[in-house]
């Protein structure tokens, strides 16, 4: 019997690299990415350095019979323009999903994010997957992520024969991932909104990679929140990773951040501060049940591994 083939997009990224390491040996891995791929131990990977928004991607589908696609070429770098991000995240995904349909891929795993729910003082604790996506009410700059999520969702309903799994993980942290929260936590002096200390959920990159690979084992379709070992207040997280919190009144912090960001030196885009003020606590029990998934690292192990490069 031939080995099954999995296509991983965005394989050069920190998290995707760990997913590739974890994929069982009876799968052949084909990777596409923009940057060169660091070699993976004991693993031969067919790597194509290309842009998924270009037509060259389709040729891989023509030549290889792909069984599963893990789509991780989703860009959430707030530094690049919304237009560019929209092109990568929405147009790129549309093209990829078209190819999946045309070349009879049996399973598609899509990486969205719990950020699409948005942080809000009115959020209940334990947001389930049917909760409205209202992040753009405060933070329109990540509308591409919401559009990506909605596009994937409607595609999933249109293709009931393809196992489509949309993952909405909480904040992924770890020494290989680079996102807003990790770059924020790696500061020595960490500004925090004065008087606010929301609960925050984190998942370690290894646990997240494990969650993504577990999608290969089960023939399910759906949207799933993915959570790690638990939730902690922002200040407690900062203390554990060893930073020094500096409380700044919201009004000052917000405008300062906005000014800095325009000059190109801020760490976070200003509306991102909402996530440091209000809760966005998601319910991950559905994923845990359907995919038999338990995060293996404790809260302290998860957080301690974040700042060490």
């Amino acid at each position: 019997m031939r080995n099954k083939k999995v296509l991983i997009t965005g394989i050069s990224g920190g998290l995707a690299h760990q997913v590739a390491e974890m994929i069982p040996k009876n799968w052949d891995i084909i990777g596409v990415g923009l940057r060169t791929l660091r070699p993976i131990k004991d693993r031969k990977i067919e790597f194509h350095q290309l842009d998924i928004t270009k037509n060259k991607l389709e040729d891989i589908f023509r030549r290889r019979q792909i069984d599963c696609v893990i789509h991780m070429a989703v860009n959430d770098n707030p530094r690049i323009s919304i237009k560019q991000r929209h092109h990568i995240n929405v147009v790129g995904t549309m093209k990829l999903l078209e190819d999946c349909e045309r070349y009879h891929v049996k399973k598609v795993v899509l990486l969205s994010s719990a950020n699409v729910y948005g942080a809000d003082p009115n959020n209940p604790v334990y947001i389930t997957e049917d909760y409205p996506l209202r992040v753009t009410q405060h933070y329109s700059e990540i509308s591409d992520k919401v559009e990506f999520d909605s596009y994937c969702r409607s595609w999933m309903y249109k293709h009931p024969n393809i196992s489509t799994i949309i993952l909405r993980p909480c904040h992924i942290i770890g020494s290989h991932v680079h996102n807003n929260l990790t770059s924020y936590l790696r500061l020595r002096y960490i500004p925090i909104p004065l008087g606010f200390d929301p609960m925050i959920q984190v998942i370690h990159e290894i646990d997240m990679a494990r969650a993504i690979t577990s999608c290969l084992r089960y023939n399910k379709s759906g949207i799933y929140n993915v959570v790690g070992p638990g939730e902690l207040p922002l200040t407690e997280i900062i203390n554990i990773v060893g930073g020094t919190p500096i409380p700044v009144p919201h009004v000052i912090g917000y405008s300062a951040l906005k000014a800095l960001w325009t000059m190109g030196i801020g760490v976070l885009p200003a509306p991102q501060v909402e996530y440091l003020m209000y809760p966005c606590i998601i319910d991950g029990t559905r994923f845990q049940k359907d995919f038999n998934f338990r995060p293996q690292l404790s809260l302290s192990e998860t957080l301690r591994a974040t700042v060490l490069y």
Partner: protein
Amino acid sequence: MLDMILRAIGSQIDASVDKEIKRRLKKLPNKLNEYNYDAWGFHPEMAQYGLQIGVWLYRYYWRTETHGIEKVPQGRVLLIGNHSGQLPMDGLNIAVAMLMEANPPRLARAMIERWFGTVPLLSTFVSRQGQILGDPKNCIKLLENDECVMVFPEGVKGSGKLWYDRYTLIDFSSGFMRMALKTKSPIVPVSVIGGEEQMPSFYDVKPLAKALGMPYFPITPTFPWLGLLGFVPFPTKYHIYFGDPLYFEGTGNETDAEIQKKVDVVKAKILENISRGLSKRKSIFW
């Protein structure tokens, strides 16, 4: 910020926290994570400072007496009470009673106004005390976790009651009944006596309240005449009567009329205990 203040001065005031409070906080059945937090942000190490003040007020300012607290069943339970007194001291007194007088101790979690979550410091403070945003999803989740939730179905309109309406009940919102039925939780009617006299309000200046973003603007013997000092409630004596637990049958999807019948049963029980308590009371202050 609150964390930083308490971390800085916590070691000095830690010794001043009543040992009984610490002991009872440890005995709470709540599930906490490895750093002693729950998902809503309750943290006993920080809650103890607020509780120290609450317990002092309960014991020495209001000299609260509880009756029938042993009737509160173990496991999931909804405490439904009458609301009064302009400031939510009734909630505070019930919560302290459930921690200090119930055996084993329970954390009674109030469903608070949404507004709290937007106020710096206060939002952190209330969530570390174990209070939660008044959203039905929160309430259902807590009941499913076998916790004790406290609801005042009269809402802010109830606590803003005028002196002439004291110890009557205004319209109950019926959401609590649906949540009780959905989660099959018993309801304990709680009647609070003493709250109505702590800050008797003779008139509610609605336009002023609206302009200031307050739920009501009471005119009391001391407020607004004494400025902020007028916010200090009178040291009336509190009595809290816990009624027998009520078990209702249903799915939570009944029509409003059917739910209302069940709500009226709870209301009647609360009123019955209020009038019993009032007739036994010798004086407002002792």
